[in-house]
């Protein structure tokens, strides 16, 4: 028989418990490194050195972080409505299609091309998310299963298009022709060169600022608008939301659309900002990283930006680590990611009882 949990003080709820959870994930990761026969402290040094030690590392770190901010926000906005969108990867993939179609087929002058391509990425992402959203809202089809299925449908569809329809005829690889210059998001080093600032040649591009803007947008949307209010109401208590005149099915559809649009941001960063052509499987599972980022950032944009940067460090530093310690391959990062999801998500209450007991003892102890 378990006694009900005593509520924890707010600071413990918001900061201490999440911190303990994430720490647990990293401690176990350290044990894994130890088991492999490497020194975890050394590994962390290499990892951080590789990610933040020089401007080049930093550039890559922020480039990865940009992708993770977008996918983290996409997952988080659904969390607020009580939905679990596992399909961010597929939605981002389709977002890439939208961007590529604009860049390859619309005869627009100069950078007006990319100005159209960015919303196209968002639109395609949203459209692909709309179907599972609609099915959840109107036909009660579980969005978790449908979005999983849609990831594979996206993969098959894009595979077909890249191999059969959009492929650069001069290439064997399933990829499109390069986009015109106006169809790219400028990279930071290009912009800084004329100003006389030396920035290494990294794929970090203006999408980073777009991602930060998206984070601000999501924050404003969720906490400062009527729509955000209604999204949160549906997520926390659909019965009360209905009482308050909110239609949950409308909110479910709108939220999945927004989520898909944010997922399109991943395509903006990778396709328009770095690859400059559509390539096979460019999402590289970053949609799933978004789940870890959203859980770790507790679905709050500030937390998401911080968690995205941490995962940026892991992805960039992990590459360095795999080079210096070949026994620790980049798969280590996926393990850490999974452990973060496990401890910050599935087992989030694991440490609650002991912490509550500890705090209760501390507080009830008479002062000496």
């Amino acid at each position, binding site marked *: 028989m378990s006694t009900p949990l005593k509520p924890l003080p707010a600071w413990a709820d918001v900061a201490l418990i999440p911190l303990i959870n994430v720490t647990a994930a990293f401690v176990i990761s350290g044990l894994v490194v130890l088991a492999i026969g490497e020194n975890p402290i050394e590994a962390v040094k290499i990892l951080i050195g590789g990610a933040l030690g020089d401007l080049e590392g930093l550039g890559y770190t922020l480039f990865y972080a940009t992708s993770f901010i977008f996918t983290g926000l996409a997952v988080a906005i659904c969390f607020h409505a009580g939905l679990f969108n596992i399909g961010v990867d597929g939605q981002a993939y389709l977002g890439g299609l939208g961007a590529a179609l604009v860049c390859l087929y619309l005869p627009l002058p100069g950078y007006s091309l990319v100005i159209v391509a960015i919303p196209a990425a968002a639109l395609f992402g949203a459209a692909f998310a709309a179907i599972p959203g609609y099915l959840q809202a109107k036909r009660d089809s579980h969005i*978790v299963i449908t979005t999983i*299925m849609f990831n594979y449908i996206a993969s098959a569809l894009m595979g077909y298009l890249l191999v059969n329809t959009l492929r650069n005829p001069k290439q064997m690889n399933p990829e499109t022709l390069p986009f015109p210059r106006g169809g790219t998001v400028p990279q930071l080093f290009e912009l800084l060169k004329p100003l006389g600032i030396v920035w290494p040649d990294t794929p970090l591009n203006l999408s980073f600022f777009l991602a930060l803007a998206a984070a601000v947008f999501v924050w404003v949307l969720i906490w400062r608008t009527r729509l955000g209010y209604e999204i949160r109401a549906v997520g926390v208590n659909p019965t009360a939301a209905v009482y308050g005149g909110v239609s949950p099915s409308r909110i479910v559809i709108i939220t999945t659309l927004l989520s898909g649009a944010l997922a399109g941001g991943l395509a903006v960063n990778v396709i328009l900002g770095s690859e400059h052509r559509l390539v096979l499987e460019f999402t590289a599972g970053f949609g799933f990283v978004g789940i870890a980022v959203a859980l770790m950032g507790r679905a709050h944009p500030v937390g998401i930006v911080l968690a995205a940067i941490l995962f940026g460090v892991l992805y960039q530093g992990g590459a360095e680590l795999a080079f210096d310690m070949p026994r620790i*391959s980049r798969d280590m990062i996926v393990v850490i990611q*999974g452990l973060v999801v496990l401890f910050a*998500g*599935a087992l989030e*209450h694991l440490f609650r009882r002991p912490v509550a007991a500890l705090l209760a003892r501390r507080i009830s102890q008479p002062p000496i």
Partner: protein
Amino acid sequence: MGWFDSLVIISDSAVRLAVPLILACLAGLWSERSGVVDIGLEGKMLTGAFAAAAVAVFTGSAWLGLLGGVAASIVVSLIHGYASIDQRANQIVSGTAINMVCDGMTALIGNAIWSQGGRTPQLPDSALFASLTLPFVNEIGAIPIIGDLYRNLLSGHDIVTYFAFLCVPLTYWALYSTRFGLRLRAVGENPAAVDTAGISVRALRYSAVIICGVLVGLSGVYLSIAQAAYFQPHMSAGKGFIALAALVFAKWRPWPALATCLLFGFLDAVSIRMQGAVIPGLGEVPVQAIQALPYVLTVVLLAGFIGKAIPPKASGVPYVKER
């Protein structure tokens, strides 16, 4: 007799491709029928495949490999069970975590041990499950048509394959003819009814989670030491999710699960064989369309356009004793 031979060959390959799906799908069936949603089949399949190959590499024994694969998969299942049953976690989040950890961990450890990018060394035939020849192949094989089917379709598979097919009637029998099965079906629909009948909800769900671990572990064993002769990172390639789709498509019932897995295996076999094939009047068949078909069919079913797939009522809902 060109088309007949082709059909037998495609069917044979469909059977081989369906085996891991059948095992994983039945695994999911056991878990979800008890009320524990499992989207972590993919991760457990990889775990089973890796552990089986690793043990087989070190011991040279396929049977020990099988034990290793199943044991590792059970451990992962128990983590999911602990999160879902005792911690009352969001089972989707837990399954997602398991998929990630297993995907990364198997590749990581494989790479750390053998330094081949996560791949295990090629296993010798002695450490694999060999194909078995059914009795009287020559005698029955001489009969036209039936003989071909017997020799080329029924005979010549390994023991895991035969076991996978045996698991279907076994599951059916256990679910519908045993006390355990009755209680299991009940606990996935209304745990309170089971509880008030004086039966432990927790024990039932843990048992189901362990059975799930055994079966999905076997699907991994099949991948690495029966179908292939090595483990390679991400080698399950989404089969865990296809099995999940098949489970939905089969509406959580054993015989339809077999049929669905065979259908999905058949589609897979066709898509491999159709690669680049041109059908007169239609042009080249898009292989991807066939590959996407299982997912599309499942979504259509979920949307309720062709019947309705209703999951066990209590699946995904942690049981909290009321008041």
